[in-house]
Structures are given as C-alpha cells and as structure tokens.
C-alpha cells in the first residue's frame, strides 16, 4: 500500500467510524418505525428518465441512478413502508460534494404526503445526531446549527423572489433557475437552521404530483443544511399516464447520442397499483459530511473515484 494512501485512510478513519454509527442509527430508526429494509438491483435494464442525470451504460444495461422505480414496484405489490440504503451511480458527477458512485437512503411511507416525509426527515436527523451524542445542535463549517423541530419551511417562489428577484413559479427560465439556485438562493439560506424548500415549479416536478388546488407547483420539497442539499421529497405521482407523458418529454429533450433511453415499462405498468405515498432520497454521504464537519465528500468516502 502506498504511503499516501495509508496516511489518507488513517486520517479519515474517525469519519468512517462515525459513518458506520450513522448507518446503524438510520437502520435502527426505520426498524423502530416499522419500515421494511429492502434491496433492489444496481444493474438495471433502464434508468429513470431524468433530464440531467446520466447513467453509466454497461453491456446494454445501466448502473442504477436511483432505487426509486424498483422500490415503487414493491409498494405497488403492497409491501407498505419500505426503506433502503444503496449505492447510486451518476455519470460525470464529480466535485467537492459529488462522487459518481454514492450512497443514497430512500424511504417511502404509505398515505404520507411530501410534508409528512419531511417530518420523518426531521425526526431521523435528530435521532441520528442524538445517537452520536450531539443533542439537537451540530457544528458545521464554524456555525452552530440548531436541529430542533420543526425546521423552517419556505417556498421556492418566496426564496427566489427575495434572493434572485424573480418568481420561477410564475414563469420558469430553466437555464437561470439552476444557476440562481446555486449562486443566489442556497448561499442566502440560514446557516444556523435547516431549511425546507418546498413547492417547486410544475415543470420541475420530476416524479412528484402537482399540488391539488395549485397546479403551478409540484409537491416536492428539498432539505438544505449548512448549505448542503441533503434530500429531495415528493408526494408521489400515482397517475401512470401523466408519468409516461413526463418520461417521454424527458427522452425527447435529452440528446443522449449512443445512450439510448428506453421507457421503463415494467415500472409504468406497476404505477396503477401504487398506493398514495410520499418518498424521499437522502444523500448519506452528505449527512455524514454534516455530522463529521467535513467540507469534502472525499473526507467521508474511503475510495472516491480517483482513488478507487
């Protein structure tokens, strides 16, 4: 083993030990809540059609970018509340907060909507922090963060009008949305409290249902802590026709060249039986970063891409 590798792995050992404790307490939390832990395949015939998430292609198959579609097939079969901790693969995503292979925690609660799922998230993060002996306050990048429930909620429309001077719900400029989100909105979020950013423009609904009574927005919420995008929750869309329409739009808009993107038919077929539910994907590496006060994902992953 090279000296550089030994020294690096020794340096992050305390973080990886803490990571193991975090995984234990996540599992303990969901088992206590009566969730079933499930496993779904990493090698899949289709990845979920998402405009800005590119799968790795392997011999005509794909590495899973998210366990969402398979977990929903279990839900459609009547499995009830399920959770999973798994690896996801997203091509080209490498940076301070990204590794192309990363760990995702995903859970679905039957009969919950997106805000019910956010309540799960608040309790989960507090339970994990408590297990680590942190109580309800953690320190990240020199700031104390108060994790006490309920976390402040705000809407995409409100924060954009305040921080960027326009309302993407009224009229969406897709190019500007992501740039302003990263440059203006996220840096303006509270440094001492988590923020729940809710009600995304309908065009950014992905697999979330539109809000009953206000179809300009989707029932989608994201959790930000210490400037990190931690999790993304939906009231799950259970309308198969609407979902297929969205998938077809994505496939049309995405110029994938040699990467042919077939429609995930088995999943679409199961959606008719999907019960009303809410779900969320939470970046485990990001949670570990927060709880280890780590600025880089490489500090909480033993073998990131360049060192694998």
């Amino acid at each position: 083993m090279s000296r550089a590798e030994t020294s690096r792995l020794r340096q992050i050992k305390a973080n990886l030990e803490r990571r193991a404790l975090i995984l234990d307490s996540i599992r303990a939390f969901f088992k206590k809540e009566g969730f079933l832990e499930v496993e779904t395949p990493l090698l899949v015939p289709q990845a979920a059609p998402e405009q800005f998430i590119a799968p790795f292609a392997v011999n005509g198959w794909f590495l899973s970018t998210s366990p969402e579609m398979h977990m929903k097939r279990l839900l459609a079969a009547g499995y009830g509340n399920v959770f999973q901790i798994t690896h996801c693969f997203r091509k080209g995503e490498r940076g301070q907060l990204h590794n192309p292979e990363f760990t995702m925690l995903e859970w679905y609660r039957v009969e919950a909507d997106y805000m019910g799922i956010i309540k799960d998230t608040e309790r989960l993060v507090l339970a994990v922090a408590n297990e680590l002996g942190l109580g309800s306050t953690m320190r990240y990048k020199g700031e104390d963060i108060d994790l006490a429930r309920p976390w402040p909620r705000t809407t995409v429309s409100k924060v954009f009008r305040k921080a960027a001077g326009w309302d993407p719900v009224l009229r969406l400029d897709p190019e500007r949305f992501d740039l302003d989100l990263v440059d203006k909105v996220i840096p303006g979020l509270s440094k001492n409290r988590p923020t729940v950013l809710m009600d995304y423009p309908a065009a950014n609904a992905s697999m979330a249902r539109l809000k009953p009574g206000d179809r300009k927005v989707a029932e989608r919420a994201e959790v930000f802590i210490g400037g990190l995008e931690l999790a993304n929750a939906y009231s799950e869309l259970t309308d198969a026709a609407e979902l297929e329409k969205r998938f077809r739009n994505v496939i049309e808009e995405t110029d994938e060249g040699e990467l042919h993107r077939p429609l995930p038919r088995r999943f679409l077929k199961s959606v008719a039986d999907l019960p009303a539910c809410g779900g969320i994907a939470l970046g485990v590496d990001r949670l570990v970063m927060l709880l280890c006060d780590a600025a880089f994902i490489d500090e909480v992953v033993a073998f990131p891409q360049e060192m694998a």
Partner: protein
Amino acid sequence: MSIEISEVSRNTKLLIDGVPFAVEDVNFVKPGKGRAIYRIKMRNLFDGVGREITYHSGDRVEEVSITAHDMQHLYEEGDHFVLMDTESYEQHHVSKNLLGNKAQFLKESMIVSAIMMGNRVIGIDMPKFVELRVVESAVSTRTDTVTAQMKAVKLETGATVNVPTFVKEGDTLKVDTRTGTYVERVTKK
C-alpha cells in the same frame, strides 16, 4: 478538438476566441435534479491574466494541444528569429515581439523552450540566466545613469547593461533575462 465540458480537468488547455487558456481549477456544482454547472478557472497563456467562465452540462469547448519544444536559435532575419526544433529539425520563424525585452539577450545557437499550439510557436521561455560576452566596454546611453560605481557595456547580442567598473571588453557576464540586469562576471577558464 471539440470536447464536452465534463471532460475538462486541471491542465486542460482551451482555445477561447482564438486565445489559449490553461485550466487551473474546475468547480463542479449540481442541484440534484438540475443542470451541472462547471466554474472553470483558467489563465490566459498570452498575457497570464486569470478569468473564470461558467459552463453548463452539455456545453462543448475547444481543446488545444500546447506543447513545449527545445529549439535552437539559428539566425536573425529582419524582425524575426529563425529557430530549429532540436528533435524534429523543423525550422520556425518567430517574431521578435514574442520575446519582448528578452529578445536582446537571445544569442545565436542558444537553446530556448518554445511553447507551441499545434504547429505555431506562441511563446518562448528563455533561460533565467544567460552568459554573454562584452564587445564594447564604454558605451554612452541616454537612458541609463552612469554612476561612479557602474558603467554601461554592450554585449555580443547588441544589448546594453549596467555593470561595475571592473568589467572589461572580452569578459563574459551572467545576465538575468527577467530583469535585464548584470548578475556577475563569469570566471575565465
């Protein structure tokens, strides 16, 4: 060659509006469901000025190959130097302007490092120090102040430098090409 922005990494050389840049840092940011944003810090290889440009996933940029070659100075021709690649023996005409003030210290048969973009020389790295012979020891100049301790001498390349009064015609001097100043007299064999 056109490449995807996701393929750009530190030390990639990019051609932007005809100007070569060296990438110094790539900052990748991406909202989970959103577009990838690449903030690329780069340095202009002509004037050394840094800049940052923001790209989105799917954007394409022009990569250029920038290489360094050892070249020997063969002769001068008007406002050009004729250099020869010491490996391929290819000859290149290089404008004296490219060397700026350093041009006056480029001696025949001297080896320099030529920075090439494709087949074009875009920069010359001179050695930091060169040794040049004094051909005229009492030169009057308009710009340089001749003090009691210093005088101006003319070197074999035509350059004029201020030196201590003990320097004589025929001496070989070490000159700093970055500042254009005398460093020391090189001991004769």
